[in-house]
């Protein structure tokens, strides 16, 4: 490097931004888009179980908690060392129940009807949990590897954000600037606008995303603790999951859970109980932890009361946390946005969508910039073609696969084996097909076709829903079922959005005039 002029900091950062962004871009795009959908995770879960009654009459939490406990003791999990349940909320009207499988390691979970205390007779589906889990573990991957990959992508994304800020010459002067119809310049302006306008959100979501899994990415602090009990104590400080102690081996009847829930409500107010965990039920050493609901506060650090499961004596109350746990809890909470009211949730959703668009426009810029400099535009080099096709497969392919996942939920027969897994298979199969399509078709056509197909699939979802469920648009409207109505409206809105994208790509190809002279041909067609 001795003979060359040293690069300026801005140039160095620009190179870093471009290549870091490209390297992690496709996975980050997938994380952003599925993560965006996850802000409506509970709602998607309800939409994907249309058999659920629209509004369940809610009884007192204490009554429901006792009913579920009795049902677990009698029918579903006798002899289990751990029972847990999340009581119904306005967003998710069923009880999510989990229990330790006595036969093997691990937890089983199911949706229970609060009115009967029995598992719900609903179609098997992962619901919104699929998008949520995919956004940090990519599904078809060993658990550790997926999360590690997500962490690396998050870290690279953070690098891309910071180097991007340094690269951007005039954040304030260009704040509202968009020069349309100018090819690369327009892409750059658009990319910058999407980035700058949502910047606080993009930084927050990327950084807090890393913090959610910090104990996995940086385990050394925790490993340095002398005993497993200490490590468990740290975990219990951050998560509402309490490892059961060894049972005393002496049978004893469980105290009334309903009474304990009422005592917790006396302390925190009605409707304040979130989750309940019962360790070693039926044993003399039983423990019952009752967690305070986390709505209306940002931090996810749990607050709970710990009761003796036999005498009902209050053993401890954890209502405060150390500053480190609190910081972690607030960042975790900010990432999840579970505290949000409806408007705030839509803000999250919208900003997250601009984040997705930011990543996508960044990926596009890489090709837009290089297309102009190709030596022979009809035969671009391998790297260019690879990026171009991967862009199509991801940016246009993933929305198609996600829409297909919803279609599969309505179309797959209700009683086939492994139904929930089959829905996910449809998702990946469609994504693979979209990728194949992106490889085989001329690039501009592949863009238009995949976007158009996605728009069509989205637009027809309300029709499909009306044909396959008893909760079509007209009925939802008549019943005041805002959730299903909202989904129908959202599908149409997204169909329009994706349709506009398809139209734009197509018009772009056809637009005559001065641009054509400069913009080279790809696969015989101008883009």
């Amino acid at each position: 490097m001795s003979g060359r002029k040293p690069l300026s900091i801005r140039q160095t950062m620009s190179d870093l931004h471009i290549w870091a962004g490209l390297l992690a871009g496709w996975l980050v795009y997938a994380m952003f888009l599925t993560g965006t959908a996850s802000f409506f995770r509970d709602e998607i879960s309800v939409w994907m179980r249309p058999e659920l009654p629209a509004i369940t009459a809610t009884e007192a939490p204490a009554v429901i908690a006792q009913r579920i406990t009795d049902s677990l003791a009698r029918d579903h999990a006798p002899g289990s060392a751990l029972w847990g349940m999340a009581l119904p909320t306005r967003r998710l009207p069923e009880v999510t129940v989990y229990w330790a499988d006595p036969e093997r390691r691990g937890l089983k979970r199911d949706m229970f009807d609060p009115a009967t205390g029995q598992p719900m007779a609903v179609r098997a589906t992962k619901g919104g949990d699929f998008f949520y889990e995919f956004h940090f573990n990519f599904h078809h991957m060993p658990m550790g590897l997926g999360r590690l990959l997500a962490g690396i992508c998050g870290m690279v994304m953070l690098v891309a954000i910071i180097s991007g800020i340094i690269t951007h010459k005039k954040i304030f002067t260009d704040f509202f600037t968009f020069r349309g119809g100018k090819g690369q310049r327009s892409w750059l302006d658009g990319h910058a606008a999407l980035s700058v306008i949502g910047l606080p959100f993009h930084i927050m979501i990327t950084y807090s995303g890393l913090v959610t899994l910090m104990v996995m990415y940086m385990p050394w602090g925790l490993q340095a603790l002398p005993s497993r009990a200490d490590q468990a104590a740290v975990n219990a400080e951050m998560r509402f999951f309490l490892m059961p102690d060894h049972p005393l081996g002496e049978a004893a009847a469980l105290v009334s859970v309903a009474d304990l829930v009422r005592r917790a409500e006396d302390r925190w107010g009605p409707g304040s109980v979130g989750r309940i965990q019962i360790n070693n039920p039926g044993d003399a050493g039983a423990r019952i932890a009752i967690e305070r609901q986390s709505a209306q506060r940002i931090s996810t650090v749990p607050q709970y009361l710990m009761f003796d499961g036999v005498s009902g004596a209050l053993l401890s109350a954890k209502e405060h946390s150390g500053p480190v746990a609190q910081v972690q809890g607030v960042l975790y909470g900010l990432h999840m946005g579970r505290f949000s009211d409806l408007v705030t949730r839509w803000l999250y959703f919208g900003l997250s969508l601009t984040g997705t668009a930011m990543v996508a426009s960044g990926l596009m810029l890489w090709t837009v910039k290089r297309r102009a400099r190709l030596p022979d535009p009809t035969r671009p080099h391998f790297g260019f073609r690879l990026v171009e096709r991967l862009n199509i497969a991801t940016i246009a392919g993933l929305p198609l696969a996600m829409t297909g996942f919803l279609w599969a939920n309505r179309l797959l027969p209700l009683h086939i084996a492994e139904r929930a897994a089959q829905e996910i298979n449809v998702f990946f199969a469609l994504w693979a097909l979209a990728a194949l399509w992106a490889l085989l078709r001329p690039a501009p056509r592949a863009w238009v076709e995949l976007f158009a197909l996605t728009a069509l699939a989205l637009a027809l979802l309300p029709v499909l829903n009306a044909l396959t469920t008893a909760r079509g648009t007209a009925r939802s409207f008549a019943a005041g079922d805002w959730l299903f109505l909202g989904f129908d409206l959202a599908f149409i809105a997204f169909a329009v959005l994706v349709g506009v994208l398809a139209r734009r790509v197509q018009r772009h190809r056809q637009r005559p005039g001065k641009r054509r002279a400069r913009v080279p041909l790809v696969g015989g067609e101008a883009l």
Partner: protein
Amino acid sequence: MIHALTFLCALAGFAALALSMDRHQREILRHPLPRRGSLALRALGFGLLLLALVPACRGLGPALGATVWSGHLSLAAASLFILLLRWRQRAGG
């Protein structure tokens, strides 16, 4: 209501900030403002952005309020961005 107030305050703030810039003065007013006017608009803009914190924090508490405020800042900036884009398209044909 809290959301509407916060958003409108932020929108007005960004509008003032845009008008304090040379480029947008030429675009909208067709001539640049004197330096004093620009500085006043800039101060007004930042002031309004800060003022938007008040309804959010009073209505939702400082923690939630600040979070929601930050979201509305972005939404307001995005809205103004689109409004200016439309303005330009109409003015420029």
